[in-house]
Each structure stands twice: as structure tokens, then as C-alpha cells.
């Protein structure tokens, strides 16, 4: 009554050892000829294209694809194929054959030779078909295992318990495995570590040598285990200081056996996508930089250590995994973008140290110039981290995981935290949303990251499809696959070998997500078509990273409070142009578009699971008119009263259900009804898709939000409105009411009543449409060695914030005498809109640097008057359009020169 997890292992028994003891002078016995063995690789199942065997529902065979050097026989399979319980690093196996005899228990059929054309569909007897990624095919050929066989064995071979005679197939070697502190010195730790013996493990090591450098001390790669070993999970993050010597990154060939109540016709799917594992954010979380450096213990509620509010992807992913694997899903699909980029910051000293100065963190993050080396930004950190998380979840839950590639999975070079190089104008591949992904304002993100936070390592794309080889050697050999559950087909199609974004003359590229250029290829289409053709037996769930329907962030989920948001899905077969994609098809694909959309329009696919756009939604299609199909976008958040989680029986538009999941690492975007102009966020999440066991009807779609992560901070959304959109303040400024010239200088006698009144000047959109209110408005500034902290009170009659009379001099000092880089505003906001008030965290303050610019009115014969405009740096520049380049960055040089906390 369970899900049980096993691992297939292909062993090559060692030759018999030398005879020990006296050599007989004469013998009459007959020496049996040694049984023939072959080197081989189990191609299917693989780590993220596993075999799921549903007891009593599936044909009574276990099906595999095996590549071998020699002609494969059932007898070889009987002796060399092993099944052991669980996924164990040392791959223990029983030397005994699977069966007393192969006959009737094992069938082997040749399916030809390995092809690296990326088009040939391989298939097992009945359960699985897929297209090998060329990198895996090439690796097989290089090892001279190019004969391919579909193999099936009787399930009775599955051991009911771990045999007592198990031997480890792996061996042990001394490896660099981590770091420790010796006093103030970081030193390397070496341990005996497990090394896999399967040929597929050797293929992985070849790839690792090529990608991460040799496994010896001459390698500059600083990652513990040199990317050959998993990280332990510590709390909800990886322990980056050490690798687990018993868990090498090696091949596994999982078999999941569902029995009893788990042996269902229809499996419920969990879907996680856009994980963007980015382990440097774990280091960034150790910063104690604060926007307003009041001093230890001073106003930390208003200006906290940025590391304490940073919501980094790794921990969010861990939380999402807990929800998805811990919930109703019977199988989990990983929808690509498993990492942000292949190279990432690693610093053992920062990881091991409990206290880090902001400057030390800046140095660790630095991507500028010569600071970016193979040692400081080694290759592979996050691939290892992702593997560690998935291995942990898969093995602890015994739930199968299927995976496909996303475009980020071969992004090589790192980028800063706010590389917003004119994104709107140049269709930049840069991502202005990263601070929001981390639940930070621009200023917070940049201050934590350091001066290189606005840079890109690569001006052009760092998309390098050759790096998909890690995914396909370690996670799955298949770029595209079709797995057949008892009554469902699950088809996964990989990203492809290129992406399309930069096209200054194009339409969709401008501000759009990258699209997959060569998906859906003819080969992918052929695989999918076969699944579609068999839909009478098994309804099809299709999963891709790229989207089919995904609304641009500025289109609301519930416009005007409606339950759904209308859009259009267009049939456009133009693979070259970008002209006719609408704002409802963000990050879609180019090739064979018409055919795919025909399939959807004709409701030949039951469910589509995608990611890529970091914004959840469930899209249902209406009836096609010409090249346009009307669509409706629904929310699937069960906590939202307007959501549509339960699909009503008999709903004519219920198939296909086109689902985009929230990003599972970064904070996803959310736009309920136009609030924050598309820059609202939610907590990361995944999706569970449930099917009715009796009918197979898709009955439920629910977002699984990482509810143990902090809510999206409202001030982050406000910051994006102000920095990246139309602005939060009229004319980009707060205004101080006019006072006389002598009051301005302080020459006038002191006033017992307030003289300074500040208009917050929020735009009508902010204060009326979104019903935002300012609960507190605080002015902070460093004067000499002390910090001014001026808390205003709201004067309803003036609709302005009054500086208490007792702090008139302080505020005058703040306006006139405080040096610019230490003049700040802290705003605590909230909303009268219950949705905005409850969905977002409004406990934190919106802190940003400002300038105070005096205005003078000196009319003849009238009192001289002075007012002040308070605005963020450089807001006096009139930039039209989206203000994507406002200088929201801290003055790093000033902090370094004037604040000991930021000193070298």
C-alpha cells in the first residue's frame, strides 16, 4: 500500500580472481566457460525520466532501454541488471541473478544503434518513448556502447527486502570535500568519498571533467567536491561549506512501484518550474548592510539588515518542494529553469563566517572585470544544489520526478542583481525583476550586492546549448519524452538549442520573455503527435518550459473584480517574424505553432503545464474564430475567493487546461486587478493537478504556495511602481510647504508650533485606486556622527505630514546640512483595500535615499519664501517613458570612504 523506490544498476562483474592455495598437479574437473558480459548503460529509466510501475494497472513487465557494447542477451540482463532498494550512493547490489533463468522472465529486442540526430524516437515495449539529447548519444558512442535494446523483465525480480549479500558497486577514493575554519584560516577538508562504477557514472565524470575541470588540486574550481558530490540539506538550504562524500552526483535509474491505494489509473501531478536555484543569494543573506545605518540596535525595525529580509530562491524552493512532495501529487514535474546561471559566486570564507561586513559580501558577489574568475565564480554550483534538493525530495518522499530543460539551464555567465540596461528600449535579456524576485527594493538589492550589481558579464546572450549536457548526462538522457501511465500520457518537450529575444525591430522581443526558436521541432511534434493519436487510451498532459498562453504582467487576473480575464490565443505560423504575438503569449515558441494550436483548439490535449513567465494562471480556451482563439485566465490560488480551482464537471471548455505555474524559487509576479501595474508579487509556489479516478477528468488545479515564506513585501511593489513604472509620487517628489527665508535659515525666532508641512504627493493611482495610506513618514539623516530621526504626524486639515515643533531644528538640519548620501525617507504604508492589505506584508518600511532641493520665491516687496522638493537622486532628469534607469543605486564610494562598516 505504498510507493516504493528502487534503483536499477548495470554491473559488469569483475573477472575471477587468482586461485589461492596449492595448485593441484592434476584435475579431472571441467572448468565452466566464463559467462559473457557486456558493458552497458541504462538509458531508461533515468533520474528524472523514471519508471513508474503501477501494480495491477500496468502491463506486468518492467520496461527499460539499455545501450550495450556487445549484442545484448536476456542472460546478460539476468546477470548484469540489478535492482536495489532506494537510491543509495554506494549502489549496493546482490550478486545473484534476477531470476533462476531468463527464459519467460526477460525479453530483449534490438532497437538499432544510438543516434545523435536529436530526432530518432526510442521506445520501450509500451511504457516510454523519447528522443535522446545529442550530448548523451555522443557520450554513449564515445564509450562504444552504441547498440540499443528495449528490455522488459517480470516485476517479480523486484526484491522484497535488501539481500544480506549486498555488495557496494561503487568504490572509495580520497576527495576534496569541504572547508573548515582553523582559527581564522579557511582550510580544505579531504575525506574518503564514494565513486560510482557504472559506465553511466563514468560518462558523467567525463562530462564533469570537461565542464568543471579535473578532479585534482590543479583545478581552480572552489566548490566542495568540485561539483561531483551533492550538498547536504541543512535546515531549508544547502550546506555550501561541504559536500556529502557518500552522495556522488551519479547516474540513478529509479523504479517507483505504486501498490495498493497508490496504484491508481490516474496520477495527480505536481508541477514546479522556474526554480532558478541561485546559491549566491545564500551568501548575500549573510550581509548586515542596512539602507539606513543607524547603528546596532537602533531602529532595526525600520531599517533592518538586508540579509534578514532577503527571500532567497533556495529556501523558497525548499519550501515549495515540501508543499508539492508533501501534498497530493503522485508524480512531480520539474518544468525547467532549474538554475539562474551555470557560474556563480562561491566564497568559503563568507560561507563559514558567521559575521560578514557588507564589503566582504560585495567582494564575494563582485562580477566586475578581473574579479570574475574560475575561482570566484566557479562553474556548476547551482546545478549541484538543484540536484541535492531534488535527490533529497525524491528519496524522502519516494515520488517520481520528471524533468525538462528551460532556457536558463544553459545560461553560463552570471549577471548582477539589477542589470536593467534599458530593458524597454533594447529588448534586453537583462532582468529588472530580480530585486522583486528576492523580495527586495532596488536600493536594498544593490546595497547588499555591491557596486557590480548593475553589470552583466555578457552583453549578448550567455545561452550556450552545449551546457545542456549536464542536464542530460545527470538528470535525463532525453530532451523530449513520453511516459505512459496506466491511463495518462505525460509528454515533456525540452527547450531547444537556441532562444530568440534580441530583435530590435521585432514586436514580441521588445520587453518580452525569450522564446524558444526551434521548439516545437518536427521531431518533438512527431513524438507529441503519437501521444495525441493515442488519446483515446490515454489523455495527454503536455509539459514544456516555454509557454502557450501567458498574459503579460500588466494584464490583470481579475479585471474589475471579474472571475476571469479575457485574452486571445493566436494561431501564427510565422517562425521568423515577431510581429503578431499578443500580450497574452509571453515567452512562447516559434516553430510548428499552427499545428500545436490546432491540437489545442481541437481539444486533443487535456492539460498543458508550463512555466517561464513567473506568473501563475490557468487558461481555458473558447471556440476558435479564424486565427484567434478566445481565452480566459483564471487564478488557481485556493485562498482567493475568485479563483477557479475546482473544474466543474461538464464544463465545455475544460480541456485543454493550460497552466502556468508560479516560479518556485523567485517571488512570482501577481496582478489581481491592476494593482502595482504588474509589479505585484506573491510567494513562490507550484501547482497540483488532480484527476478524477473514475473518469480521468481533470478536476482540480490548485496553487501550492510556500506559505512558510514571508509574504511579498508591499514596499517592494511600491518601489517598482516608483522606479520601474509610472512613479508613486506626483512629479516624482514630495514637497515641503513654503516657509520664509529666515525660517529656512533658522534666523527667525523659534516657533512653538510646527512650521514644516510635507505633502507626500502620492499619485491618485496610489492613494485612490490602490487606496494606499501612509502610516508613518520618517526622515532620517546622518549629521556628523549622530543620526537624525524625525517622525512626522499626519495633519488631516492640511493633508500633510507635520514635523513636530520640537524637531523643527532637526528637520532644518535634515534639509540643509545633511550630506546627500545619508538623507533618507522611511515610509510605512498600508492599504484600505483588504486584498492589498492582506496579501502583502506591510510591516516593513520603504527606505530610500533622497535629495532636498530648495526653491526660492523672492518677489519684490513680498516676503522671501523657500520650499523644498524631496526626490530620489537624479529624479530631476526628465526621462520620458518608463524610467528604467533611475539611479536607485547607493553611493558605494561614499559609503566606503565615510562609513567604517563599509571600509576595506
Amino acid at each position: 500500500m505504498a510507493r516504493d523506490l528502487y534503483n536499477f544498476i548495470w554491473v559488469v562483474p569483475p573477472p575471477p580472481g587468482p586461485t589461492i592455495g596449492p595448485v593441484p598437479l592434476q584435475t579431472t574437473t571441467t572448468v565452466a566457460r566464463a559467462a559473457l558480459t557486456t558493458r552497458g548503460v541504462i538509458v531508461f529509466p533515468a533520474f528524472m525520466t523514471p519508471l513508474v510501475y503501477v501494480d495491477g494497472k500496468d502491463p506486468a513487465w518492467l520496461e527499460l532501454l539499455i545501450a550495450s557494447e556487445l549484442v545484448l542477451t536476456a542472460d546478460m540482463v539476468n546477470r548484469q541488471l540489478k535492482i536495489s532498494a532506494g537510491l543509495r550512493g554506494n549502489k549496493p547490489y546482490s550478486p545473484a541473478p534476477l531470476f533462476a533463468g531468463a527464459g519467460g522472465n526477460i525479453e530483449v529486442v534490438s532497437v538499432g544503434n544510438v543516434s545523435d540526430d536529436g530526432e530518432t524516437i526510442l521506445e520501450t515495449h509500451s511504457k516510454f518513448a523519447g528522443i535522446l539529447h545529442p550530448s548523451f548519444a555522443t557520450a554513449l558512442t564515445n564509450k562504444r556502447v552504441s547498440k540499443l535494446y528495449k528490455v522488459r523483465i517480470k516485476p517479480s525480480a523486484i526484491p522484497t527486502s535488501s539481500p544480506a549479500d549486498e555488495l557496494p558497486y561503487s568504490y572509495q577514493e580520497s576527495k576534496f570535500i569541504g572547508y573548515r575554519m582553523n582559527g581564522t584560516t579557511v582550510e580544505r577538508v579531504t575525506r574518503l568519498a564514494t565513486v560510482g562504477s557504472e559506465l553511466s557514472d563514468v560518462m558523467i565524470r567525463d562530462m564533469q571533467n570537461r565542464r568543471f575541470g579535473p578532479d585534482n588540486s590543479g583545478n581552480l574550481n572552489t566548490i566542495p567536491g568540485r561539483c561531483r558530490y551533492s550538498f547536504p540539506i541543512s535546515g531549508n538550504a544547502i550546506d555550501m561549506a561541504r559536500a556529502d562524500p557518500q552522495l556522488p552526483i551519479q547516474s540513478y535509474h529509479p523504479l517507483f512501484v505504486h501498490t495498493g491505494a497508490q496504484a491508481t489509473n490516474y496520477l495527480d501531478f505536481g508541477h514546479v518550474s522556474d526554480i532558478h536555484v541561485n546559491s549566491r543569494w545564500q551568501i548575500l543573506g549573510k550581509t548586515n548592510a542596512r539602507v539606513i545605518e543607524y547603528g546596532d540596535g537602533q531602529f532595526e525595525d525600520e531599517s533592518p539588515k538586508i540579509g534578514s529580509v532577503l527571500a532567497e530562491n533556495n529556501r523558497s524552493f525548499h519550501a515549495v518542494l515540501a508543499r508539492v512532495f508533501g501534498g497530493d501529487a503522485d508524480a512531480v514535474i520539474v518544468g525547467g529553469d532549474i538554475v539562474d546561471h551555470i557560474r556563480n559566486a562561491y566564497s568559503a570564507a563568507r560561507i563559514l563566517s558567521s559575521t560578514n561586513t557588507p564589503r566582504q559580501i560585495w567582494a564575494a558577489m563582485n562580477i566586475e572585470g578581473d574579479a570574475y574568475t574560475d575561482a570566484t565564480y566557479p562553474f556548476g554550483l547551482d546545478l549541484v544544489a538543484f540536484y541535492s534538493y531534488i535527490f533529497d525530495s525524491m528519496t524522502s518522499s519516494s515520488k517520481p520526478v520528471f524533468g525538462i530543460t528551460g532556457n536558463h539551464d544553459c545560461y553560463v555567465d552570471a549577471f548582477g542583481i539589477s542589470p536593467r540596461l534599458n530593458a524597454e528600449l533594447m529588448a534586453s535579456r537583462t532582468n529588472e525583476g530580480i530585486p522583486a524576485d528576492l523580495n527586495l527594493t532596488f536600493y536594498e538589492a544593490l546595497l547588499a550586492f555591491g557596486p557590480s550589481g548593475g553589470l552583466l558579464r555578457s552583453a549578448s546572450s550567455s545561452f550556450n546549448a552545449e551546457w545542456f549536457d549536464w542536464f542530460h548526462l545527470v538528470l535525463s538522457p532525453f530532451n523530449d519524452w513520453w511516459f505512459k501511465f496506466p491511463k495518462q500520457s505525460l509528454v515533456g518537450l525540452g527547450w531547444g538549442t537556441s532562444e530568440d529575444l534580441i530583435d530590435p525591430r521585432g514586436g514580441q522581443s521588445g520587453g518580452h520573455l525569450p522564446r524558444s526558436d526551434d521548439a516545437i521541432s518536427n521531431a518533438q511534434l512527431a513524438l507529441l503527435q503519437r501521444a495525441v493519436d493515442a488519446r483515446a487510451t490515454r489523455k495527454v498532459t503536455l509539459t514544456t518550459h516555454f509557454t502557450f498562453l501567458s498574459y503579460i504582467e500588466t494584464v490583470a487576473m481579475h479585471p474589475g473584480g471579474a472571475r476571469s480575464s479575457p485574452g486571445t490565443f493566436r494561431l501564427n505560423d510565422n517562425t521568423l517574424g515577431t510581429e503578431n504575438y499578443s500580450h497574452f503569449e509571453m515567452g512562447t515558441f516559434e516553430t510548428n505553432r499552427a499545428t500545436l494550436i490546432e491540437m489545442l483548439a481541437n481539444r486533443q490535449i487535456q492539460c498543458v503545464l508550463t512555466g517561464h513567465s513567473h506568473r501563475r494562471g490557468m487558461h481555458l480556451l473558447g471556440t476558435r474564430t479564424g486565427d484567434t482563439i478566445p481565452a480566459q485566465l483564471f487564478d488557481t490560488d485556493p485562498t482567493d475567493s475568485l479563483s477557479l480551482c475546482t473544474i466543474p464537471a461538464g464544463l465545455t471548455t475544460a480541456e485543454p487546461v493550460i497552466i502556468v505555474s508560479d516560479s518556485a524559487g523567485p517571488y512570482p509576479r501577481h496582478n489581481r486587478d491592476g494593482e502595482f501595474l504588474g509589479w505585484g508579487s506573491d510567494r513562490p509556489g507550484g501547482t497540483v493537478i488532480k484527476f478524477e479516478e473514475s473518469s480521468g477528468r481533470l478536476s482540480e488545479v490548485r496553487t501550492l504556495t510556500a506559505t512558510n515564506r514571508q509574504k511579498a513585501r508591499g514596499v517592494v511593489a511600491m518601489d517598482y511602481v516608483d522606479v520601474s513604472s509610472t512613479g508613486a509620487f506626483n512629479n516624482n517628489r514630495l514637497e515641503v510647504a513654503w516657509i520664509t527665508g529666515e525660517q529656512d535659515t533658522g534666523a527667525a525666532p523659534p516657533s512653538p508650533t510646527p512650521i514644516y508641512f510635507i505633502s507626500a504627493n502620492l499619485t491618485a493611482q496610489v492613494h485612490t485606486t490602490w487606496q494606499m495610506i501612509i502610516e508613518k513618514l520618517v526622515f532620517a539623516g546622518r549629521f556628523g556622527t549622530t543620526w537624525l530621526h524625525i517622525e512626522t504626524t499626519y495633519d488631516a486639515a492640511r493633508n500633510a505630514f507635520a514635523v513636530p515643533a520640537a524637531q523643527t531644528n532637526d528637520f532644518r538640519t535634515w534639509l540643509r546640512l545633511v550630506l546627500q548620501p545619508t538623507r533618507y525617507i522611511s515610509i510605512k504604508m498600508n492599504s484600505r483595500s483588504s486584498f492589498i492589505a492582506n496579501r502583502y506584508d506591510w510591516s516593513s518600511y520603504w527606505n530610500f535615499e533622497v535629495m532636498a532641493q530648495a526653491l526660492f520665491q523672492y518677489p519684490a516687496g513680498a516676503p522671501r519664501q523657500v520650499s523644498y522638493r524631496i526626490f530620489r537622486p537624479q529624479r530631476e532628469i526628465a526621462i520620458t517613458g518608463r524610467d528604467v534607469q533611475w539611479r536607485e543605486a547607493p553611493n558605494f564610494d561614499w559609503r566606503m570612504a565615510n562609513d567604517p562598516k563599509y571600509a576595506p
Partner: protein
Amino acid sequence: MAERLAAEELVWLTRDPPRDEHDQRVAWTLADRAIDEVRWTDLVEHEHLTLERVEFSATQWNGVVFRRCLLREVQFARSTLAHAVFEDVVFERCRFQGTTFEACQFSRCRFERCEFEFLTAIRSGLRECVFDQLTTTVFDLRECDLSGTRFVEASLDGLRASKSTADTLELRGGRLQGGDLTACQIRSLQIVGVPIDGLRILDSHFGQATLAGARINDLSLGGCEIDEFAIVDCPELLGLHVLQSTIAEVRIDTCPMVAGLLIADSRITELNLHDARLYDAAFERVDAGPRSRIHGGALTGILFVGGTWAGLDLRGVQLADYVAVRQTHFSGLQFAAMQVGDPLDLRLDSDQYGDGSMTWSDARGT
């Protein structure tokens, strides 16, 4: 319509420029081409190359050398030029958008009617270059050397410079809005005929800094060290703040409208105001040397708070509205030929004077 590079052109541009039958380099022209998403790392040297209407987009180009080349109506969008050398190159009506220069060297280059939008230069040299009628929207210079460079009739929005240096730097004509200089070192800065609207200068060192002949609004200096700081012939000087700075000589000359002047927490060896009309000026905690002078012009509302004035000579100055003094020490205050308005409000509190010094109360009598 720009077309993609032909294979031969690609080789010429990125690896091996064309040669004649004698294997000598020849001048050549590349026109009407669009180059997207490429990364070139081969070292290549170009001489007498003309690029016309070439669009570089998302291009990363390392180690290229241009000598005596002409770039006309060339666009660089979201591109990076690293370790590139430009010598005696003329850029005509070129446009740079979202582009980065990293460790590049521009020598004796001329930029004519070019546009910089969000251009970042890091550790680069822009020496003896002329920017003629340049238009910028955010031009960020970090650790750059601008020696001998001149901006002529440039419209500079969002000029930022940090840790940058120059022997001489000149801005003449045009306009400057929203500028920031941090930790810069410039021996001689001349800004002539350039209206300024917002310029903040922090932690910087200047030998001589002169601003002349245009309106100035919102100019602040903080933590600066300057030998000679002069503002001359400004029709309006509004909101000049000098904070926490050390300046040998501050000279404000022939400025008929100086509103809201504030000098605070600073050491000024010599303050010279000549024919300047100040409104609501304030000097807070200023330590001034013995040769400060206010000659001619007017003081309509002036405040002294704290500080010491070793010598302050006022001659031919109109005093009006108020003089407020709090806890300020004047060692040698002298008045001559003063024109004092009636009523003048003297708000004196703990004012102190040295032997032989006049007092502010004496101003009316002179």
C-alpha cells in the same frame, strides 16, 4: 535597411582587415549593417576604417583597436566594449544606448552630435577628447581619466562620475542637469556658460574649479577639498551649499542674485564676495581665515552660527532685513562705506569679537 554582415566583412571587421595586392592595409568602409548578439575576442587593429550606419546590438567586443577611423551614424545598443583602444577617431552622430566601456582608452577622439543614453564607462581613459554637442541621458563614469577632455555645447543629463580624474576638464556652453561627482580629483575644472540644474559634488579634490557665465540652481559640495573655487558672472545662483569642505578660496564675483547660500562645517581660508547680492545666506560653524572680504553687493538676511572669522572686511555692502549672529567669534570685523537699510534687524546672541574688531552693531555707523 541594415543588412547582416557578409562572411568576408565579418573577417575584415573582427580578425583581419582587408589588404591590397601588396599585402598593405587599405582604407575600407562598412555601411548599412546590423550586428546582433555576438562576442568578438580576437585582437584586431583598424586604421582608416569608416563605419556608416552600422548597428551593433548586444555585441561584446574585446581588444579592438581603432586608429584614425570614422564612425558615422553608428549605433551601439546594449553592447560592451572592453579593452578597446580608440585613437584619433571621429564619431559623428553616433548613438550609444545601454552600453558599457570597460578599460577602454579613447585618445584625441572627437564626438560630434552624438547621443549617450545610459552609457557606463569603467576604468577607461577619455583623454584629450572633444564632445561637441553631445546629448546624454545618464553618462556614468567610474574610475575614468578625463584629462584634457572638453565638452562643447553639450546637453548633459545625468552625468555621474566617481573616482575619476582629470588634469584639466572643460565644459563650455550647453547645459548640465542632475550631475553627481563623487571622489573625483580634477586639477582644473572650467564650466563656462553652462546653466546648471542640480550638481552634487562629494569627497572630491580640485585645484581650481570655476563656474562662470550661466545660471546655477542647486549646487552642493560636501567633503571636498579645493584650492580655488570661483563662481563668476552668474545671473542667478540658487541654493549653493558647501558642507564639510576645506577650501582655500571661495570667490563669488558679480552675481546679482544669490539665494540661500549655505556654507557650513567648513574651513575657508579666504571668502571673497564681490558685487554679489545675497539673500538669506547662512554661515554655520565656518572657520574663516584672516583675509575674507565682502565688497560691494548686498546682504539681505544673513546668519552666522558658531565658527570663527579671523578677518572679515565688508566694504560698500548694502545690509538689509536682518543680521543674525549666534555664538560666532569675529577676530577682525571691519566695515567701510556700508549702506544699511532701515530697519535692519540685528539678532545678536553670544557674538564675540577680537581686540580692535568692529561689531555688527557698528555696521550702521559706517
